[in-house]
Structure formats: C-alpha cells, structure tokens
C-alpha cells in the first residue's frame, strides 16, 4: 500500500528502509524512523480506537508520551501489550497492532451507544448509580462496567521475556536530550563530572528534530547529532536512549525505564525486554521539555484534531502530511509555525484562527506572504465529522448570537499554550508555582538537588534553552565538586517570542451544546468538571477523584492545567488559589515486570540448600519450605506411601531403633571473649556463669516486653568459648538481637561473636541404637559415664573433624554431629553406611514434629510472640535474682494474671478422629458457632504412634491447672467438634530417662 500522505522529501526517516506492519489485520508500509502513529498517518489512518466511556472514535492527538487517545494492543499472544501509545512505538518490521475497546469492529462499535446515554454517565456516575443492592456489585454491575468501560485486554499467557533492574551512579543526571539537556550534559561533562543523559527517544535532540530551527548556523537536527557524537566520545558520559526517567524519589534517587527491545519483534538472545534503571545522581538537571495543551471546544476529540506542535512533528520529523486541508486554531504565537511548516510541506492551510485580537505582527506578515488567511478574535467553537473531522465552526471569543462560520477541513491543529513538564520536579517534593505570563505552572523552590531548565522551566525560546542548559550543567558539576571554566553557549537562530492570552473554554456556537472534552483518555468533559464543582467537589484533589480527570494512564498530561483552570472559573477564583495536584511516579506507564526485574519464578526468593540436599532429592524426599530453606519433610519409600505412612514409619524407626535427620538449618553462633558467659547470662533467663567446659545447656530468651523470643542450646567449648544454637526461623533475628545489645546497651562487655550457621552441617542421630551406631565412627569414648546427656566434645568421625553434642529433641537417646559443611554429605553417607546393619534410616521434619509434640517440646507454634516463659512451662528455668532481657516486663501484673493461655497437652477421646491445628478449645456447653467463647486453641497436632491416638499441644486459658478436664476442640469451617482430654504436655517419658540412658 502506498504512503499517500508522505511528503515527497524531508524528515528524519530513512526512505531507503521500508518497514511492513499491520494494523487491525491490514498491511501497511512505513519507514525506519517512524513511530506507529506517524506510519499510520502516512497511510491516511486517523481512526485508532474508541474512547474509554462513550466509545467515541478517537485518533492521534499528540506525537509523544502525552498521547491520551491513540492506544493500541501491540503484538499478539504472550507478548501482547495493551494500552500502548502508538505515538511512542518505534516502527519495526512485522509489527502487529490492533485497535482496542471496540466490538465488533473499530468503525462499527456497539458500545458507541454509550455516547447517546451520556447523560447517565456523568461525573460521579459510579457513586450515584451503582449504590445498591450490595450483591449486585459483584454479580451484575462489575461485569457491565468491565465490559463497557475499559481499555485493552491483558494477555492470558505468561510473558516470555525477561526484565531487569540496574543501578548507576553519577555526578550529574540530565533528564531529556533536547537543546537544554544536550547543553547541560556538555557543560557538566566538560568539567569532568560523571554525566548520565537520558531521553525517551532513540533520536536525541528533542524539538531540534521536530522543529525548523537552527543552532550555530546549522539545521537544529544536525547540530544535535554533532552534539550527541561529541558526548558519545567522552568516557565520563553515559547516554541512555529509549529511556524515560519516570520517578524522582527520596535522597535524590531517580528511576528510569529503558526500552531495550521494544523496537524489535523479539528480544535478541539474553537481552531483556525492558530494564529499570535506578540512578544515584549527586545533582539532577531536568530538561524534560513542555507539553502542549489542546483548546477545548465542542467535539474536540474527533480524529483529525491534533495538537499544533504534534502536527509540526509529523510534518518535519516524519515527513507526513496529517491532512490535506488544515485549520490552525490557537491562543498563542507558537502555533503559527504549524501553519508555516504545513504550507511548506504542501498542505493547504485554510486559515489560522487566533483567539487574540492583536497577534504578533511579524507572524501575521509571514502568513500574509504565504497567502494564509488569518482570522483573529475568533476560535473554533465546535468541530464536526464522524470518524474524521470534516469541518470547524468558528465563533467569536465573546460568544455569538448568529449561525457560526463553517470551514471545511480534515485537520485542525490546536494549541492552547504550553505546560512545562514539572512531573519530576513535583515528585522530588517541590511545589510548582503559577506563572501569569505563560498561563501555566513553573518550577517552585527545589527541595532536592535538582533544577529545571529550558521549556521545563517555562522558557520556550531556543536561545534561552541553550543558555539555561549550559549554566545549569556547569553549576551542577560545580556543586558535585568539579571546577573549570564555563564555555559560551552556541547561537540559536531566531525562533520568535512566545506570547499567549488565556482561552480555557471556547464559546459554543449559538444555541447548541456539544461535548467538550477536557480529559480525552477518561472521557471527562467540561460539564463533568462543572458538575463536580456544583456538587461541592471543588478542590483539585476531590475533582480528580470525582471525575477521574487525570487518573488515566496518561495521568492527564494534556488535561490537568485545563481542568483546574475550568475549576477556578467555576469557583470564581484565580488559578493559583485552586492549586495543582501533586504529581506521582511513574511519569509514563511502566510494566509491572520491570519492577519485578529478575525476581520472578525461581528467582522470586533465593533458596537455601543444606549440604545433604542433593542426597535428599535423590531419595525422593518431599521437601517443605522453612523460611528460605528447603528441608526434607518425609521420605516416601513407594509411590503409594502417604505422608502419614511415612512419618509413622520414621517415628517408629527413631523410637525403636535409630534414625538420622539433617538439622543444618538451626542457627549457630560462635561466641568468644572474657565476658561471653556474662553476655549469655543477660541474654537468657537461666544461669550461665557456672556451665562447665564440655557441657551443653538449654536456654530461653525473652524479648524486652517479656514474651519468649527463642530457645535453643548453648555449649561451652572452652574457657571463653561458647557455641549457641537458635531455632531455624530465628537464626537471623537472634544474631541481630545480640548485636543490638552488645553494641547499644552493653558495649563494655568484651565479647565477640558471629554466625557460623553456614559453616556446619548438623546431623541428629536419634534412637536407642544411636550410641551403638556412633561408636563405629566416632573416635571418642561414648559410654554414658564418659559422654553423658548434655555433653559436648571435639572428635573425628572417621577422618572428618567433628563436634559431637549429646542433646535430644525427639526425647530418645540422641546425639548431634556437626561437621564442616563441605564434608556434610560424606558424613551423612558414612553414618548411613555404619548404621546399615541396624536399619538406620533418615527422618524428616514431619516425624520430628510428631516426636517433639509427644515429648512436649514447645516450638514456633507455641513461641508465637504472645507467650511468656510461665505460659510455656519454662519459668522454672529462670533466675530472677540476676538481670536478664525481659525480666521486668515478664513480671508485669498482666503477665502473671489468671486467664492467660498456657501450654497443655490434648488427647483425642474420639478414636480415629484427628485434631486440627487452629481448632478452638470451647467448653461443651458452648455451641459450635460460639468461637467467641474460645478458651484457647490447638497449636500443633499429630497422630502419636507411641500412644496410638491423635494428640496435640494447645494454648488454653489457665491450662496448667486443668489437667484431667475435658473440653471440645471445634473447627467451625468444617463443622467439626472433637472431645479431648486436657493433660500434661509431656506425653512420653516424663522423667527424661530415655535421653539419659
């Protein structure tokens, strides 16, 4: 298909490189250097989509990231990307795009009937209409609203591409590579500063590429290209193209998104699709340019009505004629250039309509020389046409009482003036201020190390941009510590002065009413803003929420200032008194994937493996996550083995024979120094000053609020050398806790410590035959007298250096062997080999849990942060004659009062019925539903192979005094109620004879 609306020559596209693409299934051609929008316009396609609420035909308004309308679904299948602005999509070969929010087709959209029912869809429509009944919300309204209003549809397949995050530091970050930005980067780089300059586009130069401008006597784009080449050659400058700075955060942290592979169909091998950059600049120069605002008139959303500067961009940069018969309508001097450039490209400019009565004389003269009609004191009151603008109705700015003048056209280039892009400035915490000369907001006082220059500073002249850029770049480098002389700025060609008179809403043609759109993406009209004000939603923040103005994906880039000017008009107040909403990141829509970066799928969280992991995996162990750790939960021996089969078998093998478990995940802390014992004495509730060398002791730690924090064993390895273990879950918190007290509370204690969790593989060998097994491999005397319960010693396991502890969690005769982790698997295999004749087998955390419940050892589900040592039956350990953390608050009256939940054992009295974790303990007179009468809860349950019934630990009101009573364990979700007997939490071997055997 020919590109009928391409100019014969000119533009910064490569006419030697045609590119094929499809839109709504139809094939087109464009050129390298095109955006999807410019290529569509070159092919005469103006209708791109349907609007959000009324499903009105919409086309292309702008030429950059401010575009509210021209949103398409880009690509297909898993790479489909909805709501993508055609104005920012670089054209690539094989590009597939589709219009969205229309059904069955773009030109015939059934939901366009919303347009006729628009009185029902006014501001606050959702709040007013869908109020009741509540059940209708999920069943009825939601579906209707989702179908009727909305944008593109999300892909249903997983995104095949990957995203990543990167960090870079610099002295000066320059945002935007237009004339001001290029000068700022140059000035800062010349002084030797590390400079980052980032720009959204692949072609740097900003307005120099889209406008007919000259610098140093050269065409603007040539000067920009030379400038970029110069910067590229400097090794202290990093140029980021296709990179939009979207967020300005605390402490001068700035985020940007780099579209690494969006301009190709499929990313190159290994390349991310997009990359998020976090920049850490010392100074920021914001040269983000300005955004033109449209004039607001009736039917101002019809395709073919475009921003005046966008029309110039399409004409000058892309060599596209956005129409054949154009009208330029403006309230300022800038749009005259559109008429001149269009004329130069061979487009008929029917008239320039300037709402001002006294336009700039040189511009008027220039139009006259080109025989372009200039109409002053008038504006476009309304436009007409269906899927493309067909005519404009001109009205006097004073309002008319007669039929308006009709001018036929297929393009209306509209300019309501310019708004500096203050998004990043505002995000940095600064408050923009209103400027009467340009009828817009300009930067206020900086709150962070940033400065706005050029158009972003409200200075629209090219020479001003160059001057300010240079000065700001030099100053930023200086503030970052770099010296050197400032250079002179280059000379810009004359681009006229900017002048403007306010025109916020055009009068409507006599006796007619039209929809006048303020926010085209969210279909917010002037009447909606007025209604909001009339209904009392008359602050900018309320207006925004009530009408949704500025809340679409474009965040109101073309509508915010217009909306608050209209609101100010309604309130009869000056614009500065109405204020401006705070800009929030991101400046442009950013894919969620970019925020996730690499941390998806397997990389979502790191996984911690023990040295035995590979062996466990080979055995077909079923794993459970314990924090980041993977632990073997149980070991199926055949495909039909259930978890219950396994844990019963593994428990029985431990209780009757000998078994091994990998306990490497327990926290381990090496503590040394003259004051180590004193330190332990303050950390734990029990006594540590007299623990003999070669002995282990169980200890309990409290938090400062008196609740139990953690428990574990600590061994004395030498005169001033201790080895602490913590629970798996609290390994890191306990270490931080110790560091906190050592550094902030007791810095005088001469003690040092560090985590050695990773250094040691821990293997517990438990069961009546454990001594027999270990005697085969351990080189020290293991007889009960020589190595009794709670002994610790250095030894060798065959050739492997080891530490042996005689401790037991299972309640059986048991040992724990620690070996350096690189020997962990070998140690494990040697133990298996040595125990083969006895039938040694591994056991997992599931039977471990069973045995600790049988033994009444409290663990994480009882140490839930709300239980005291007294509640857990551990108060007997504490020595209140010494000082320890949590001592005072654990003795507060409430901690000792009646009615606290205390740990108890629970036995099911209903054979075959198993207790559940989380079941409430209620008196039998209470009904099933009355969980509010709960006396406590079941914290851990198991079927006890030793007792032959379901048992549990629970936390029960005054439980210690209630052994022997009966109570109901209820689980309302499953309508379940089981009678249980309350008992002592230690179910087996209450005197602890087995562990001492």
């Amino acid at each position, binding site marked *: 298909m020919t590109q009928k609306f391409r100019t014969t020559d000119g533009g910064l596209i490569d006419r030697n490189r045609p590119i094929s693409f499809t839109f709504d299934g139809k094939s087109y051609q464009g050129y390298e250097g095109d955006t999807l929008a410019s290529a569509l316009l070159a092919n005469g396609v103006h209708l791109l989509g349907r609007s959000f609420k009324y499903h009105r035909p919409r086309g292309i308004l702008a030429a950059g990231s401010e575009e509210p309308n021209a949103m398409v679904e880009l690509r297909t299948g898993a790479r489909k990307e909805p709501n993508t602005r055609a104005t920012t999509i670089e054209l690539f070969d094989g590009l597939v795009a589709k219009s969205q929010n229309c059904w069955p087709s773009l030109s015939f959209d059934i939901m366009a009937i919303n347009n006729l029912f628009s009185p029902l869809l006014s501001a606050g429509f959702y709040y007013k209409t869908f109020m009741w009944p509540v059940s209708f919300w999920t069943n009825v309204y939601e579906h209707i609203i989702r179908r009727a209003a909305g944008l593109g549809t999300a892909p249903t397949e997983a995104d095949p591409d990957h995203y990543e995050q990167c960090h870079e530091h610099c002295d000066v970050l320059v945002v935007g590579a237009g004339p001001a930005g290029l000068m700022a980067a140059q000035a800062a780089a010349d002084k030797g500063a590390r400079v980052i300059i980032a720009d959204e586009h692949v072609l740097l130069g900003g307005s120099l590429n889209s406008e007919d401008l000259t610098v140093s006597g050269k065409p603007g784009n040539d000067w920009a290209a030379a400038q970029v080449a110069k910067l590229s050659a400097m090794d202290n400058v990093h140029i980021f193209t296709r990179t939009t700075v979207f967020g300005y955060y605390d402490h001068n942290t700035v985020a940007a998104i780099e579209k690494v592979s969006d301009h190709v169909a499929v990313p190159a091998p290994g390349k991310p699709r997009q990359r998020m950059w976090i920049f850490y600049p010392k100074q920021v120069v914001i040269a983000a340019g300005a955004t033109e605002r449209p004039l607001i008139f009736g039917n101002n959303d019809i395709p073919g009505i475009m921003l005046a500067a966008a029309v110039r961009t399409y004409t000058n940069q892309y060599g596209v004629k956005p129409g054949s018969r154009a009208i330029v309508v403006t309230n300022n001097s800038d749009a005259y250039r559109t008429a001149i450039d269009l004329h130069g490209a061979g487009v008929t400019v029917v008239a320039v309509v300037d709402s001002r009565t006294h336009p700039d004389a040189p511009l008027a003269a220039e139009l006259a020389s080109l025989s372009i009609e200039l109409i002053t004191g008038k504006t476009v009151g309304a436009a007409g046409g269906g899927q493309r603008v067909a005519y404009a109705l001109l009205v006097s700015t004073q309002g008319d009482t007669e039929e308006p003048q009709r001018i036929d056209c297929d393009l209306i280039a509209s300019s309501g003036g310019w708004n500096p892009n203050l998004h990043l400035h505002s995000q940095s915490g600064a408050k923009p201020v209103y400027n009467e000369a340009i009828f817009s907001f300009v930067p206020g006082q900086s709150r962070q190390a940033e400065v706005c220059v050029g158009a972003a500073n409200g200075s629209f002249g090219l020479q001003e941009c160059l001057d300010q850029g240079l000065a700001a770049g030099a100053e930023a480098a200086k503030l970052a510590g770099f010296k050197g002389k400032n250079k002179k700025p280059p000379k810009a060609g004359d681009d006229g002065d900017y002048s403007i008179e306010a025109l916020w809403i055009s009068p409507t043609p006599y006796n007619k009413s039209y929809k006048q759109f303020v926010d085209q993406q969210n279909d917010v009209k002037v009447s909606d803003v007025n209604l909001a004000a009339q209904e009392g939603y008359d602050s900018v923040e309320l207006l925004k929420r009530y009408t949704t103005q500025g809340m679409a994906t474009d965040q109101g880039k073309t509508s915010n200032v217009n909306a608050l000017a209209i609101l100010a008009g309604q309130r009869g107040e000056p614009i500065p008194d109405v204020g401006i909403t705070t800009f929030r990141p991101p400046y442009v829509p950013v894919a969620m994937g970019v925020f996730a970066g690499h941390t998806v799928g397997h990389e979502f969280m790191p996984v911690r493996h023990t040295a035995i992991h590979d062996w466990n995996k080979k055995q077909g162990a079923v794993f459970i996550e314990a924090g980041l750790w993977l632990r073997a939960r149980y070991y199926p021996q055949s495909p039909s083995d259930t978890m219950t089969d396994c844990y019963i078998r593994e428990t029985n093998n431990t209780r009757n024979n000998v078994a091994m478990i990998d306990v490497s995940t327990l926290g381990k802390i090496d503590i040394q120094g003259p004051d180590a014992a004193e330190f332990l004495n303050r950390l734990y509730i029990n006594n540590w000053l007299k623990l003999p060398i070669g002995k282990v002791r169980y200890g309990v730690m409290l938090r400062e*609020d008196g609740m139990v924090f953690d428990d574990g064993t600590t061994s004395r390895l030498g005169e001033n050398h201790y080895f602490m273990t913590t629970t798996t879950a609290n390994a890191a918190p306990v270490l931080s806790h110790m560091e906190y007290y050592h550094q*902030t509370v007791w810095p005088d204690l001469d003690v040092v410590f560090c985590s050695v969790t990773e250094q040691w593989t821990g293997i517990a060998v438990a069961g009546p035959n454990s001594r027999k097994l270990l005697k085969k491999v351990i080189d020290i005397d293991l007889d009960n007298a020589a190595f009794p319960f709670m002994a610790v010693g250095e030894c060798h396991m065959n050739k492997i250096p080891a530490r042996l502890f005689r401790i037991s969690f299972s309640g059986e005769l048991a040992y724990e062997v620690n070996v350096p982790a690189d020997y962990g698997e070998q140690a494990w295999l040697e133990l298996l080999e040595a125990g083969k004749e006895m039938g040694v087998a591994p056991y997992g955390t599931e039977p471990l849990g069973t045995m600790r419940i049988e033994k009444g050892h409290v663990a994480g589900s009882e140490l839930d942060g709300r239980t005291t040592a007294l509640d857990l039956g551990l108060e007997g350990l504490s020595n209140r004659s010494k000082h320890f953390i949590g001592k005072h608050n654990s003795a507060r009256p409430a901690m000792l009062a009646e009615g606290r939940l205390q740990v108890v054992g629970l036995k099911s009295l209903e054979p075959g019925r198993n207790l559940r974790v989380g079941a409430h303990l209620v008196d039998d007179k209470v009904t099933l539903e009355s969980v509010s009468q709960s006396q406590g809860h079941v914290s851990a349950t198991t079927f006890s192979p030793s007792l032959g019934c379901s048992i549990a630990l629970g936390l029960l009101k005054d439980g210690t005094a209630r052994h022997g009573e009966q109570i109901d364990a209820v689980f309302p979700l499953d309508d379940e109620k089981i009678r249980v007997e309350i008992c002592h939490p230690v179910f087996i071997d209450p005197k602890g004879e087995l562990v001492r055997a």
Partner: protein
Amino acid sequence: MLRIECPWCGVRNEDEFSYGGDAAVDRPSDEGSPDEWYDYVYTRNNSAGKHTEHWQHVNGCRAWVIVVRDTVTHKIYSTVPASPNLPTGKAGVDQT
C-alpha cells in the same frame, strides 16, 4: 528510598539496613521501676520532625548506627556508631 550513610561503609541503600526503633529511650537499670520498664518498651512520642533512631547495617558490616532523621521529609541529619567501643574509620573511598 532512603540512602543511609554507614559511618564505616559510606552511603548505602535503605534495603541494606534494618530499622531498630527509637534510639532516644534509655534502658532502665535492673533496679528500674515497673513504670520505667513499661515506658522503655511501650511509650513513644511519634514525633513529626527530627527523630533519633537505631538502624543496623545488616546486609553490610552489621554495625548498629544511630540515625537522626526527619520523619516528615526523610532528611537525614547524622549517622553515628551506636557503640562507643568499636574501632571507627571511614571507607577508603566514599560510596556516594
């Protein structure tokens, strides 16, 4: 994101640190009254403005530091070691 200057390692991202609460409260002695101990754990000012707080450089040198931070603007006025007894010194080259 906050950027916190570790007195030893230089400026690092907030995610290397973990917050440790109010650093202005004094821990009572073992002879302290129940009220003093209660206040130590539970009573806080929740001030808008300068706030003295503990952070630990947990993914770095593991030192506890005292940070004076404005709770409204996040401006950080100072960061000093919490322990008076640890050897001091600044990173060979500042990580700003």
